[in-house]
């Protein structure tokens, strides 16, 4: 291997690592706030990328219909809850978010799709179609089990992953898609030539991470989520509702997932089930970080990205074996450096 190849591989690794870092952050966030190990994160990657691909291709993405369905499910559950508890107050907002918004988007999507609109309009529309699915998913699948053990929540996650993969296959078909690059051309950095798209991906990831940092450090909602992560019961006692923090977290996770999908879709062909493996690599990153520390998760992500890039050069058939086996020495190291903990139940 010469330097040129090494630099190209390093570039690949860093770009993928940046994406894994984003996903790893989202996973750590969701776990810290809701104790959900969010395996369906990868589905949001696929939904984001494929919805954008459909819009660019001039078709109405079926995600719009999914949104209407999910909204209907939320409304039904809310109605049942309201009947049971006699609390009807939150209902108008639910109707607005889960009926009006999906139908508006259902009306909007074909108009954007056919119009040959600029890429950023498509991106925004795709985000609007995918991100609300996050909070809706939380309400339908997870909120009724908010007090269950991590294990039950994990099994729910796997079930949701199954369902969403099936839905993705039904909606987008088995063929792979790519989307146009956000940025054309390339930049000479002196020691290597980087494609504009790569720089854009890394830059966007960095910006997003900075934005998240500001959100958690400076805003009331961000602080509320942090409080929930530290002590759920304590947060509830001072008026931070579990439902609110869950919905917000899932919204953020969906946003990060969908954006990640759109960022890699120009360089990687995305199939309906691609997201799962990408999400799992975000997981490996998050586990390296111990599902607790954000900087460690980001560092783990870069490691995974680089390892994958170099492994694909030296032993491409064993690329996945190497990446997923990496987790075992990491787990070993964690198990030796920490006292065996009691299972919480």
């Amino acid at each position, binding site marked *: 291997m010469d330097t040129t190849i090494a630099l190209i591989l390093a570039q690949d690794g860093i770009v993928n690592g940046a994406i894994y870092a984003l996903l790893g952050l989202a996973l750590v966030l969701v776990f810290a706030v809701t104790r959900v190990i969010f395996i369906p994160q990868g589905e949001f990657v696929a939904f984001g990328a494929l919805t954008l691909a459909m819009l660019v291709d001039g078709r109405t993405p079926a995600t719009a219909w999914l949104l209407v369905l999910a909204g209907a499910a939320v409304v039904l559950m809310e109605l049942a809850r309201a009947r049971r508890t006699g609390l009807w107050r939150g209902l108008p907002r639910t109707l607005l978010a889960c009926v009006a918004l999906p139908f508006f988007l259902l009306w909007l999507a074909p108009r954007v799709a056919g119009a040959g609109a600029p890429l950023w309009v498509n991106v925004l529309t795709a985000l609007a179609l995918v991100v609300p699915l996050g909070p809706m998913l939380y309400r339908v699948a997870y909120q009724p089990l908010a007090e269950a053990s991590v294990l039950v929540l994990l099994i729910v996650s796997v079930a949701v992953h*199954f369902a969403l993969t099936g839905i993705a296959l*039904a909606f987008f078909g088995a063929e792979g898609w790519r989307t146009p690059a956000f940025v054309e051309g390339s930049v000479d950095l002196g020691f290597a030539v980087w494609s504009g798209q790569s720089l854009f991906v890394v830059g966007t990831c960095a910006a997003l991470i900075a934005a998240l940092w500001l959100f958690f450090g400076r805003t009331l909602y961000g602080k509320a989520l942090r409080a929930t992560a530290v002590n759920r019961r304590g947060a509830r006692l001072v008026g931070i509702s579990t439902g609110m923090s869950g919905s917000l977290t899932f919204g953020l996770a969906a946003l990060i997932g969908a954006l990640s999908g759109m960022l890699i879709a120009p360089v990687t062909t995305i199939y309906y089930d691609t997201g799962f493996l990408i999400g799992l690599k975000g997981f490996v990153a998050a586990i390296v970080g111990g599902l607790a520390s954000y900087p460690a998760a980001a560092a783990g992500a870069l490691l995974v990205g680089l390892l994958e890039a170099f492994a694909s050069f030296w032993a491409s058939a*064993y690329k996945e074996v190497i990446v997923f086996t990496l987790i075992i020495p990491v787990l070993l190291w964690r198990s030796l450096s920490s006292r*065996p*903990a*009691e299972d919480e139940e």
Partner: protein
Amino acid sequence: MMRRLPLALFLLALAVLPLWPGTPEFWITQLNYIGLASLVVLGLVLLTGVGGLTSFGQAAFVGIGAYATAWLTTQQAWSPWLALPAGLAVTALVAWALGAVTLRLSGHYLPLGTIAWCLSLFYLFGNLDLLGKHDGIAGIEPIRLFGVSLASGRHIYYLIWALALLAVWATRNLLDSRPGRAIRALRNGAGMAESFGVDTGAYKIAIFIYAALLACVSGWLYAHMQRAVSPSPFGLNYGIEYLFMAVVGGAAHVWGALLGSALVLTLKDQIQNLLPRLLDTSANFEMIVFGVLLVVLLQHARDGLWPILAGWWARIAPHADAQREPPAGAPALPRRARPEPGAAVLEVAGLRKEFGGLVAVRDIGFAVRAGEIVGLIGPNGAGKSTTFNLVTGVTPATRGSVRFMGRRIDGLSAREIARLGVGRTFQHVQLLPGMSVLENAALGAHLRGRAGIVAGALHAERASEAQLLNEAAIQLRRVGLGDHLHEPAGSLPLGRQRILEIARALAADPVLLLLDEPAAGLRYREKQDLARVLSQLRDEGMSLLLVEHDMDFVMRLTDHLVVMDFGAKLAEGPPAAIQADPAVLQAYLGGIDDDLPLTAPAAGGAS
């Protein structure tokens, strides 16, 4: 009789189905798959449902079993009957290695770890030249049994179901044995079990290997039934599906494994048949329906369907639970040698515990002699419970020494301390509420039996088991719980649960008994009974150290008192002297010179 009826009907139907020529071939195939899945799911019941260790990776062990026999029989021309033990050995080795690495991790790391190694092994199967890469290995010979080829589905059916039912039998046996009690404690009582000498780490690895071996057997059968293997049925999706089956059937119930496998596989098949007709599409709808159904099931019946079914049957055919009286004729267990009366049993010197800057226990020292009851008292937050945990090895001390019968035990684990003859109860009752009173007490006698997993699974340890149960029953009768042997421990009122904890500790035949607030929650009469039992134990030469808030109880019962306040020893001496000690009075009742004058009631009602 009524209770056994469904089982008898089920076995009869299983035996007759393939003999009757009218049975469609498809049913046989489907039943074969259900049997194969049941083997894997049974392992998950033990591992996940009972032991609390979640694995998404069982499909990989099925793969190891299938590939091992495929390679050995096609490339090395081994007999399948030799390839099976070879596959089992490989599986055990892999499971041991993976378990040693991942099982020490807390709750959610383990399932994530299993996802990772399941994927790794899957890609490994698909990329090794040796194993035929993604095409796999074809042309596997059928199994021959007593000269009969099991090539047809109707023939291998009997082997599959014989092994599956054998696994059900062994797993049920295992759960109802000495190792079984330890395994049932892993999920919610691991710390408590350690205090009775259960090596929880070793049991976790053991059930992990047990589950992997069952999966391996399933893989071996699969390879010879299909006559070909390829990587796809050993991927993560199948690992997940096995876990689904366990959850749907009822993860903590052995028969739930069969029910779950049958339901999931039948449902999957029906959905694959029906949905395309209904929706005119070939898309993968069973995944969607599956996922949604599972979420709904978890939201409404978290324990799976077996308990619901069993509940219905219990209502249709009510029966008194088969109450197995422990055989009274079982020879008594050997007892430990007691120290001479008056010999020092426990000596604590300069014991200190710091939590960061906080000194919870400040250089405390005291001694407990054989045949003596020592009370450790003090206001809330005085460091009594911390002292307790230091002595029993639950928390490591910052410095100082603890000697038991002259031997240093500080630095030893709770398990080793238990082995030396220290029994204890817990301030917050730690029982296994689903297990019977008798079984809970028998867990205390864990170290007095030796039966292992294999003996437990084969029920070859009945004589030793009878001794353990007998000992548990003796201790239960002694503390006055003789009428409640077969009730679930969780149904006892709190006071009785504390008494049960004492019986459990006594079952370990301790030299020194540490009781953390034994009288809390007891009524007056019960306290009197308890005091009688404790003084009887003292007369037999046992040493007792107890933390208690009921002053009346403490003053009457103990020979010696140690008073703690703010982590330090405030006073020490016979009860009468302590009652008169001004420093103690001040700590308990406030200063004599305080604004609020107290006509100090000497015999404190402080609690």
